[in-house]
């Protein structure tokens, strides 16, 4: 599809863009550096504030025999104790398999069984220990391959009853909550005819997001019956919707539920959808008139919010001797955890795209969402793509080596380009994958062998490509309001979240560009669902694109209204008018310049003394109208589930100390096709941040559980995340710009993509250095040391 964009005309007239494409200073900068920025936990709620604590399951799978809350109710300061009996409702983002508090069964260690509300935090925590729960322990399933085996106990016997989106295919009577299949061409025949076929299995464990701000929520049901919930969230409107739906039996309608989301201290997917917030919202309904705060500890943050799912990936690739990939078979067994209301869509997204950014004629993908008795899996930066690219990009390096082809040449030969057919039959969008490969390869001096002076150090280089599409409902939408102020400044209201990526700044730049304003004259704030228009969620790397289009459209509407007033009063035709330097100007009358501040509120007085115009207000919305998630369940063919893909390449130069197995990253380069970088500095920020987060997953992070399903490392001492020491010596961010035809100024999202390539690029660099292939993440010092001692040289 093609759309004509107003910016093109504007840019042509002005010869250049003034706000878009500049590294405008982030508009939340002063708030955040001065201490003024307020996060949820920083808000004051007065002396009526109560505190919540959660009673948690010690078992991975058990039946709740009884709950006795009497001792807790009598404890000092306790106002109320609630259990699943108070809220016998299920809900979920894409599938209704989740509960506010456990209903009859617990399915992972840490699951919320009851909630205590007390005057102080300490009192709530103390009283929670007094709730007595009797359990009948059941056999727990911790491994997805065991959970899909015949005769495995069922984690959700009611799977067949759950509501779900039409693009999920649950298998009732099994632990398979969703099975995404792709069948294209004839893989069997292609493998038979291929010159070379390689099959192997790759393993990726679970990971934690580790936003530095823990989840926190404050709920208040006021005496008028309105429920307001302040949350540290990526998804104010989706939360409002889920609170309203989950609590609908209590008589709430959407208009009675309000979600306010101030600044959020990092999300990475962990604060998307709804996790603990619904507990806080529900608790608040039990103590009318009192705000209730529920703040998760760092430990709870690890075990009772979303985790990145683990995956066992069985991969088979066939190629011809000239390097052409002819067939891919990718079977992904996802350890999706106890509830998959969000995580099943991660599985779906991966299944649709598990060939990676390559042209593949014959495909058989099976992506299985498997219930296990581990904490609920969910979205994490990369949304399934980070997970499967490790195996895929490792595997392709091996295939290239086996047929004697350079891994970069091999990738270049098979790289998907505009118009190529995707696994589900739709076609690839314009993409800068080839320049991304070339620029990355040259940034790490690909092909130039490097040797260390130190005999105990070996050097390796690795490269990996990546792609990712926003994973969302086909009609996920964004909206914006825009209003002018007396001095010609503008307020833009949107409901995307400033997670740190610079969203508010980018929206301001887009509005400023269309309206001929300096970026400083545009104010964009964090949302309040009572006042700000709809946004689905700030996930999927889609807000620059989708919310950006909504803002662009609002600004265009405002501009039209401005031109209309000028036309009414001065008679200039609209198509001769333009906005620049905070003024309306005219191409046919160089002397005409009407400052916006003169009329955007008060209007313009005409010769007879009457006025025209009035406050300039506008709105814009965007919903993709070319997508559809309907497809054949057995083949995945027929739909157009993804709006577009963002692509790129990642290259690593590493040194390995052969005595210790320690890996040092000397250089990390990453090229991503932003379409148009609305703010290049912010794009570079995503690249450095994503690279380091991705490197941590491959080098040391890893959630470890004991045989009873208990997380062994729920803190930063035992689950190490990178410090200032743990970064590459050099990071090289590369921005590619092949415009997205339907994007705002040609932009598409890049936020998640920057994390995907690091893991396989390291695996490939380790192979390059040592000749040893490590097929499971993380590639720890111990694994490398073992590999070194086992290797022939």
């Amino acid at each position, binding site marked *: 599809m093609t759309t004509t964009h107003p910016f093109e005309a504007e840019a042509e007239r002005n010869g250049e863009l003034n706000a878009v494409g500049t*590294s405008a*200073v*982030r508009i*939340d*900068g*002063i*708030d*955040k*550096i*001065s*201490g003024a*920025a*307020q*996060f949820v*936990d*920083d808000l*004051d709620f007065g002396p009526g504030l109560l505190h919540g604590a959660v009673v948690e399951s010690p078992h991975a799978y058990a039946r709740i025999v009884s709950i006795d809350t009497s001792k807790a109710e009598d404890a000092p300061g306790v106002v109320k104790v609630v259990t699943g009996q108070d809220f016998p409702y299920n809900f979920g983002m894409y599938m209704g398999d989740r509960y506010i508090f456990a209903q009859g069964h617990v399915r992972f260690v840490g699951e919320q069984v009851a909630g205590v509300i007390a005057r102080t935090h300490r009192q709530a925590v103390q009283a929670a220990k007094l709730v007595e729960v009797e359990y009948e322990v059941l056999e727990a399933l911790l491994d997805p391959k065991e959970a899909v085996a015949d005769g495995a106990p069922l984690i959700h016997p009611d799977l067949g009853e759950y509501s779900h989106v039409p693009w999920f295919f649950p298998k009732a009577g099994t632990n398979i909550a969703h099975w995404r299949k792709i069948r294209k061409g004839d893989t069997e025949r292609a493998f038979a005819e291929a010159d070379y076929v390689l099959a192997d299995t790759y393993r990726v464990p679970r990971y934690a*997001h*580790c*936003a*530095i*701000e*823990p989840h926190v929520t404050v709920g208040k049901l006021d005496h008028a019956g309105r429920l307001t919930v302040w949350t540290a969230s990526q998804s104010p409107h989706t939360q409002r919707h889920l609170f309203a739906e989950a609590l609908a039996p209590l008589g709430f309608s959407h208009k009675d539920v309000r979600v306010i989301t101030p*600044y*959020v*201290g*990092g*999300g*990475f997917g962990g604060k998307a959808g709804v996790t603990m917030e619904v507990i806080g919202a529900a608790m608040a309904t039990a103590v009318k008139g009192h705000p209730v705060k529920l*703040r998760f*500890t*760092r430990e709870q943050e690890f075990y009772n919010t979303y985790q990145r799912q683990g995956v066992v990936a069985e991969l088979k690739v066939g190629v011809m001797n000239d390097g052409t990939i002819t067939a891919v078979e990718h079977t992904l067994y996802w350890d999706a955890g106890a509830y998959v209301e969000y995580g099943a869509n991660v599985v779906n997204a991966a299944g649709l795209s598990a060939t990676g950014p390559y042209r593949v004629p014959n495909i058989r993908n099976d992506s299985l969402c498997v219930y296990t008795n581990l904490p609920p899996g969910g979205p994490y930066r990369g949304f399934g793509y980070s997970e499967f690219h490790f195996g895929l990009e490792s595997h392709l390096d091996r295939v290239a080596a086996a047929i004697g082809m350079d891994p970069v040449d091999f990738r270049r030969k098979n790289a998907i380009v505009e118009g190529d057919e995707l696994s589900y039959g739709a076609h690839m969008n314009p993409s800068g994958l080839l320049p991304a490969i070339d620029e990355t390869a040259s940034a790490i001096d690909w092909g130039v062998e490097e040797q260390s002076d130190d005999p105990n150090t070996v050097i390796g280089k690795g490269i990996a490509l990546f792609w990712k599409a926003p994973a969302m409902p086909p009609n996920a939408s964004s909206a914006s309001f825009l209003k002018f102020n007396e001095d010609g400044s503008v307020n833009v209201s949107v409901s995307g979240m400033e*997670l*740190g*990526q*610079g969203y508010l700044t980018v929206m301001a730049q887009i509005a400023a560009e269309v309206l001929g304003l300096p970026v400083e004259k545009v104010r964009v704030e964090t949302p309040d669902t009572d006042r700000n228009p709809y946004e689905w969620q700030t996930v999927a790397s889609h807000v620059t694109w989708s919310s950006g289009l909504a803002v662009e459209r609002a600004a265009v509407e405002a501009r039209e209204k401005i031109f209309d007033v000028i036309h009414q009063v001065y008679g200039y035709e609209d198509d001769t008018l333009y906005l620049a330097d905070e003024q309306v100007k005219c191409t046919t009358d160089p002397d005409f310049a009407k400052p916006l501040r003169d009329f955007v509120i008060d209007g313009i007085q005409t010769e007879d003394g009457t006025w025209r115009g009035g406050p300039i207000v506008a709105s814009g919305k965007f919903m993709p109208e070319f997508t559809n998630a309907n497809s054949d369940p057995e083949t995945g063919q027929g739909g157009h589930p993804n709006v577009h893909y963002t692509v790129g390449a990642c290259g690593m130069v590493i040194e390995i100390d052969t005595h210790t197995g320690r890996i040092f990253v000397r250089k990390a380069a990453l090229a991503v096709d932003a379409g148009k970088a609305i703010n290049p*500095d*912010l794009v*570079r*920020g995503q690249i*450095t*941040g*994503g*690279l*380091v*987060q991705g490197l941590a997953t491959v080098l040391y992070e890893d959630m470890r559980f004991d045989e009873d399903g208990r997380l062994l490392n729920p*803190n*930063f*001492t035992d689950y190490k*995340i*990178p*410090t*200032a*020491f743990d*970064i590459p010596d050099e*990071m090289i961010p590369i921005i590619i710009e092949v415009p997205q035809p339907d994007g705002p100024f040609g932009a598409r999202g890049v936020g998640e993509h920057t994390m995907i390539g690091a893991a396989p690029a390291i695996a490939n660099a380790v192979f390059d250095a040592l000749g040893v292939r490590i097929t499971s993440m993380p590639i720890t010092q111990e694994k490398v040391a073992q590999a070194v001692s086992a290797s022939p040289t």
Partner: protein
Amino acid sequence: MQVTITVNGESWDLDVAPADVLLDVLREQIGVKSPKIGCERGDCGSCTVLLDRRTVRSCLVLAVEVEGHEVTTVEGIGADRLSDLQELFITLNSFQCGFCAPGIVLSATELLDENPNPDRHDVQEALSGNLCRCTGYEPIIDAVLAVGQRSGEVTP
């Protein structure tokens, strides 16, 4: 227990419990919210404040221990005018979500007080107790080094 603490130049007489930590007292009793709660066990550094110009993790310091001492937070550092470091943090995009920023600014301020022209390794060391999940640290290190270079330039 009664304690007197100076916070950002203002003296406070406070009633605290023996187990109260400085972080909670700052946030709940004084209303100074820039020190953040990230882990409550000394791992993340988001609660960092200056105690008599030296950084401490306020989640590990008992409020009673601070009797008679002076606490500085980021609200106190940039009260009249942002420091050079704060300015550079903004222009070099040295934070994203900003949750870590108050603590990191204080750790970097302490470093620059002691060593006005640090090298990359010094900066990494000074910041190694402050976790940032967003930036990949590179732009933070750049900002601290840039302040150092500036101070080098104005030195007569």
